[in-house]
Structures are given as C-alpha cells and as structure tokens.
C-alpha cells in the first residue's frame, strides 16, 4: 500500500510541476499577477509530494519490503540500517528520485529566498525550473518507476553493491546532486533574463549566490567522491579520469568560469552574453553528466541503467534543453551587446583569459570522454583515453590559469598599469620559482613537473599573503581590528578559495612525485620495508560483519624502531552477492598517509599485501575544503541581502537599470 501511495504522490508531483511550468510563464507573458502567483505554491506543493514519495520508498527499504523490485535488488534484511537508507539512491531509479527531489529543494529555496525579485522575473525562473522538473519526473515515471512491484515478492533481497556500503557513500551522491542540480537555478535565471530581455547587473547579482552555493556543493561532492575512491577502491589512487568523474568535473570547470564571469557582469556590466552561455553550458554539462552516468553508455559502478530507452529519453531531454536555450539566446543576442568597457590591462582581461582557459579545459575533458564513445557507437573501433592525455593537457592549461588567478586580484577593474603591477609582484614570482625549484631539489625529486607544481603552489601562497597585506594596508591609520573588519566576506571567500588551490597543488604534486608502492608476498612474522617504514605482518584473523565474512590482516607499522600502530586491512566476501571486496587500512598523517590493502591468499597460506606511502595526500582534500569554505563566505556576503532590499524597492519603482 505504501509504495502505491509513493507512486501516486510522484504522479501528483508531476502534475504540479507542469502547473509550475506553464501557468507562471503564461502569467509573466500576459502580465497577470494572479497567474504568476501560482508558481510559488505549486513549487512548494511539488516538493511536499516528492518528499512524501521519497519517504515511502525509503520505508520500503527500511521495512525490507522485497515485494518492491527496487528494494529486492538493492537491499537485504541483514544490511545495516544506514545502508538500507542510503541504498535508496544506490541504484538508477532511486537516484533519479533523489535528482528530482534535489531540484525541488532548490526550487523551494528560490521561492523562500527570492522574495525581493520582481514578480515576472520570479515567475519565469519558477517556470523554467518547473519545465526541467517535469522532464525529470516524467522520465522517472515512464522509464524508471522506483515503486515497481515484484510479484510474487521474494523472501530475501540481493543486497546493495558492497562498494556502496560505506560512509562516504552516505553523503557523496546527495552533495553531488545538489551541485549538479544547483546549476539549474543559474540556468533558470539566465533563461528568465533572456525571456524578459533584462540581462543587467541586477540579474548577475541575483544569480551569483545561487551559482556559488551550487558550486560549493559540487566541489564538496567531487572531493568526497575522490576520497571515497581513494580509501575504498583499495589501490590508493584519488583521481582516475574515469568518464564518470569527468562527468562531474566538466560542469565544475564551467561552473568555476561562470562564477567569475558573473562577477564581471555584476561589477562592470561586461561579458553578459558570455555569462549567459556559460550558465547554459554548465547546466547542459550537468545534464550530459547525468546522461553519461545513468544511460549505461559508460560501464562503471555508477552505471545502473542498461535499458537503451532510458538513455534515449535523457538524450532527448538534453537536446531539447540545449537546443531551445541556444535558440532563445540567438533570438535575444542583439540585446546583449555593450556593457562596461575595459582596457587591455585590467582585471576583466585576466578574468576573461582564465575563462577561456577553463572553457578549453572543460572541452578537452569532453573530447577525451566522448570521443571513445562516439567511435564505438559508429563501430569505428575501440579506443580508450587515459590519464596520460588528461595530464598532458591539464598541466599546460592550468599553469597560466594559476599564475593569472593570483595576478588578477592585484589588477584594478577597467584599467591598470601593467608595468607597475608586474614590478610589484615580480619579487614574489621570482621567490616562488626559487622556492619551488629549491624544495623539489630538497625532496630529491628535481623534475620539471615537481619544480613547476611546487613553484605554482609557492606562488599562490606568497601572492595570497601579499594580497592580504596590501588589502590591510589600504586603510593606513586605522586600527588592526577595524582593518580586518573592513574586508568583506566575499573578498575572504575569493582569498580562501584561491589559497585552497595552492594547498591542493602541493598535495597533487607531492603525491604525484613521491608516492611509493610495493606489492609483496607476506607470511606471519615476515616484514617489508617501504619509504623508511617497516611493515610487520602479524597474521590474519576472521572478522565477520552483519552481511559479510571477512579476513582481517594485522600489520604492525614501525618507524625507527618505534611501533606507530596496527593497520588492519580486510578482505571481505559479501554473502548475498558472493562479491569480494578489499577494505584498505590507513594511517593518516599531516604529511603522509600510509595505506595498506590485502590482495589474495596464496596456496601456502601467505598473502599478497599492497603497501603504499602517500606523501601530502590529505592536502588535496584540505585544499578542497578551503575552496568550499571560500564559496560559502562569498555566498554569505552581506551585500547580497542589502542590495536585494534595494533591488526590491527599485523594482517596484520600475527603474532597475545597469548598476554601476
């Protein structure tokens, strides 16, 4: 009964999403306040029904109701409660429902936090979001009904894929989806602005915090996914350039470009058409990501769907969204000309250059991800594009991005004196290269890659400090406290996020240059050496969990004659699916991780053990945390609320123009 209620609620949500899509858009066109006002309650009602539907599905999982096909395929009565709940999105149908729920949540957030928006504009935003929502809910209902019954029901379920039974999996998908789907808000704002022909600074200002928050979610989602892959896949890599990772990285790159482009549009009124295109592009890439991951064209742990009908449906959705928005853009492009002028040497130019580079980087990932699929689809042969390609592309593309990223904030808007600025930062630049080369030499790994990476990291850190010192020095005479307080939250956000990139680069460079790895056969009492650490194998004991049998290794980690601790990697066999799993054990440190995983047991009773030494790997995630914090600071800036009030007042008077 409960699953049927959930199914019914989802159908009601679809109806409301159609109402939300059509009525406010018509209302905005006819300037009818009554019709426009329908958007808000429709969006909120839709959220209620999707939430209800989602709770019903979760209930089926918790109750181990194996007459529901989805629960039977993805849960088991012995699965821990946490993984019963997260198992709801560990499959195609449930994850689509989560997608729809995220979208609905964003829409409700728009209705709550955008009271200051002009009615017609809000109506159009809600209309566009309603259209997207209708597309996804109907996709779920037509091709992937999560409430499908299995008649007769089975006594026991097949359990959730063991790889997904992990704490990282509890938060990775919701974070990632909130990020993906969040770009739909930036998209809806851009489309609403195109529809109303009002692409001004106010539009950019309304759009900015939404874009930034979506970007924060996406950053966090990608970082958690990378962390999960690192400790769960058992071989210590943190990024594989796997098509599924690329699917989330492409919108991230374009979303990063969009955030910066929006900044220029807000402050200077420039780059307007470019910003609109980026907003359309970032959302299209989010949809493409969903298509790639969910259609089954890519086979991986994420690809649940193998039904070609589903792939086709998303592809059609993708084509409609991209096609319709580009058509609208073409029709309105003539209104997008103009904006603040700026000279060759200005902050605008440096942001533009970085925007171009980020877009090319995103396109290069797209090429590497789609080209093999394309060849395969046309039966022209099978190829693969691996990490060497992406590394060959990213190092030269990102080097100028990082250099400019720190130089740009020194430049003034509109016009600046290049020579004077270069003279000012040149000492920092020289010092960074010296530090980079020097530390590469100090760690005994003087390759151009290591030296370049460390130089860039030093440049980011030193230039950040210099930038802060300069900002504090602007108000000479004021007390230190009031100088600090005079810095806005959005400035801190920029500063932190950029610093995070520097920390991230240190992690990537060090682990890329200096990691060590050894596969070795070990018997009880034997030991192995790696990177100055001694690993003593103390044997293997049985350690069965609720839904798996496991062998747990005991490995003593010794350095300089001192025991640092015990590492206990596991080899698990999940009973329901008969699937083996490797659970690595980590000794996490500030400057290095030691990582151990069990291979297989040999006939003579010894084990293959994989030992890894990963210097500075945590810095990768610390860098991501700083980027995310930066985003939060930037979105929380008081000025959005203050100016929002002004916009609202101005909108009533009908005289919002391009703000200076």
């Amino acid at each position, binding site marked *: 009964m409960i699953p049927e209620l959930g199914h019914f609620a989802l159908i009601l949500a679809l109806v409301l999403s159609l109402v939300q899509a059509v009525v406010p858009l018509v209302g905005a066109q006819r300037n009818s306040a009554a019709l426009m006002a329908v958007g808000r309650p429709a969006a909120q009602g839709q959220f209620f029904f999707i939430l209800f539907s989602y709770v019903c599905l979760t209930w089926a999982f918790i109750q181990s109701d194996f007459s529901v096909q989805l629960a039977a395929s993805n849960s088991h009565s012995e699965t821990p409660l946490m993984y019963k709940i997260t198992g709801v999105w560990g499959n195609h149908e449930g994850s689509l429902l989560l997608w729809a729920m995220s979208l609905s949540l964003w829409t409700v957030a728009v209705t709550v936090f955008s009271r200051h928006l002009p009615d017609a504009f809000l109506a159009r935003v809600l209309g566009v979001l309603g259209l997207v929502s209708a597309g996804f809910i109907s996709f779920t209902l037509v091709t992937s009904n999560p409430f499908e019954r299995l008649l007769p029901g089975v006594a026991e379920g097949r359990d959730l894929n063991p790889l997904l039974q992990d704490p990282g999996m509890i938060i990775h998908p919701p974070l990632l989806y909130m990020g993906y789907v969040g770009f739909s808000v930036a998209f809806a704002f851009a489309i609403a602005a195109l529809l109303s022909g009002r692409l001004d600074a106010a539009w950019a200002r309304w759009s900015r915090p939404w874009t930034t928050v979506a970007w924060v979610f996406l950053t966090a989602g990608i970082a958690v996914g990378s962390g999960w892959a690192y400790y769960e896949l*058992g071989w210590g890599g943190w990024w594989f350039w796997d098509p599924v990772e690329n699917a989330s990285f492409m919108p991230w790159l374009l979303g990063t470009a969009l955030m910066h482009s929006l900044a220029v549009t807000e402050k200077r009124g420039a780059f307007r058409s470019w910003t609109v295109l980026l907003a359309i592009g970032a959302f299209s890439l989010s949809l493409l990501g969903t298509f790639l991951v969910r259609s089954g064209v890519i*086979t991986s742990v994420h690809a649940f769907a193998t039904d070609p009908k589903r792939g086709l449906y998303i592809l059609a959705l993708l084509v409609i969204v991209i096609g319709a928005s580009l058509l609208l853009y073409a029709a309105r492009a003539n209104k997008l000309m103009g904006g603040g002028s700026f000279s060759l040497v200005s902050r605008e130019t440096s942001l533009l250059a970085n925007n171009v*580079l980020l877009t090319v980087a995103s*396109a290069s990932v797209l090429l590497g991800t789609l080209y093999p699929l394309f060849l395969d689809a046309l039966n022209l042969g*099978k190829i693969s594009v691996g990490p060497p390609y992406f590394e060959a592309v990213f190092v030269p*593309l990102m080097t100028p991005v990082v250099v400019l990223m720190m130089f740009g904030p020194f430049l003034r808007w509109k016009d600046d004196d290049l020579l004077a600025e270069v003279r000012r930062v040149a000492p920092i630049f020289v010092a960074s290269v010296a530090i980079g080369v020097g530390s590469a030499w100090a760690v005994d790994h003087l390759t151009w890659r290591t030296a370049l990476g460390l130089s860039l990291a030093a440049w980011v850190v030193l230039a950040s400090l210099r930038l802060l010192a300069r900002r504090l020095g602007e108000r000479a005479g004021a007390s230190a406290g009031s100088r600090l307080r005079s810095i806005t939250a959005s400035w801190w956000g920029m500063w932190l996020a950029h610093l995070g990139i520097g920390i991230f680069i240190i992690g990537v460079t060090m682990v890329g240059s200096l990691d060590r790895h050894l596969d070795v056969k070990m018997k009880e009492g034997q030991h192995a050496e790696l990177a100055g650490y001694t690993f003593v194998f103390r044997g293997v004991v049985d350690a069965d969990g609720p839904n798996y049998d496991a062998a747990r290794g005991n490995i003593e980690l010794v350095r300089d004659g001192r025991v640092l601790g015990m590492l206990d990697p596991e080899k698990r066999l999940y009973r329901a699916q008969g699937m083996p799993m490797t659970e690595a054990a980590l000794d996490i440190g500030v400057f290095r991780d030691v990582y151990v995983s069990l291979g297989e047991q040999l006939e003579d009773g010894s084990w293959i053990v994989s030992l890894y030494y990963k210097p500075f790997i945590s810095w990768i995630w610390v860098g991501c945390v700083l980027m995310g914090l930066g985003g939060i600071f930037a979105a929380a800036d008081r000025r959005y609320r203050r100016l929002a009030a002004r916009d609202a007042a101005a909108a009533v008077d009908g005289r919002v123009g391009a703000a200076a």
Partner: protein
Amino acid sequence: MKARSKRLMLVGGGVALLVAAVALVLSAFQQNLVFFHTPTEIAEGKAPVGKTFRVGGMVEDGSIQREADGVTVRFAITDTAKVIPVTYKGTLPDLFKEGKGAVVQGKLEGGVFQATEVLAKHDENYMPPEAAHAVEQAQKASQTLSQ
C-alpha cells in the same frame, strides 16, 4: 591607443590563446590514444610492437600461474580463437578469475603481453565490453570460416 585597436588586440589575443590551447589539446589527444586489439588481431600481427594498447577477452581456464615472488602472475587471455600469454606484476582486481572476462593494458614484447594494468570491474556478473567484443569477433570469424 584607440578603442578600436584595443578591441582588435583583445580579440586577437583571445583568438591566439584559444588556438594555442586547442592545438595543445589535439596534439596531446593524438599522442595518448590507447587502441584496443583482440587476441586474433595480435596473432595476425596487426597490433603494434612496443606501443601501449589494450587486449580484452576471457582469462583462459587453468592459465593463472604465480612466480616464486608471489606478485608476478602469468595468465593467458583468449577470445576463444587465439590465445595471448600475459605477465603482470602487482595485485589483481578482486573479480579477476579464470573463465571470466578481463581487459589488460600494456605492451607486446617478444610475443608476450607485458601488462601494466589489469582493469578492475565492479560487478561479478559484468563483462567488460572490450572483452565481450573480442569474443564476439572471434566467433563471427569462425562462423564465416565454417560456412
């Protein structure tokens, strides 16, 4: 500088940057493509020597052997028509088994495939598409021969 020539420089600079970046991407792409060959193609000498590529098929029954060090493994990949011997040093994926599909990446040296990577898959019932493709090709070829 006049506004017009400034704009020209900006556009020119932007286009130059774009062209350089695209050229870089495309050349890196050309150099780093990894091609896929079936065991039959290798036996026919169609696979490059000394260049990295991928082979897919089934792990032949009874072919897995370990050297004394325990971490060097020899096995054979077959598409049911031809068999290619493979050596690999390292930990094998959890789901690597005789009689199951596998894809390996590496180089061909002296008739033996030196694998640097054995691809891990995430589901026991799942057959890597490259492996399925190789077996399918071989079976098609044998049907053509018997006709």
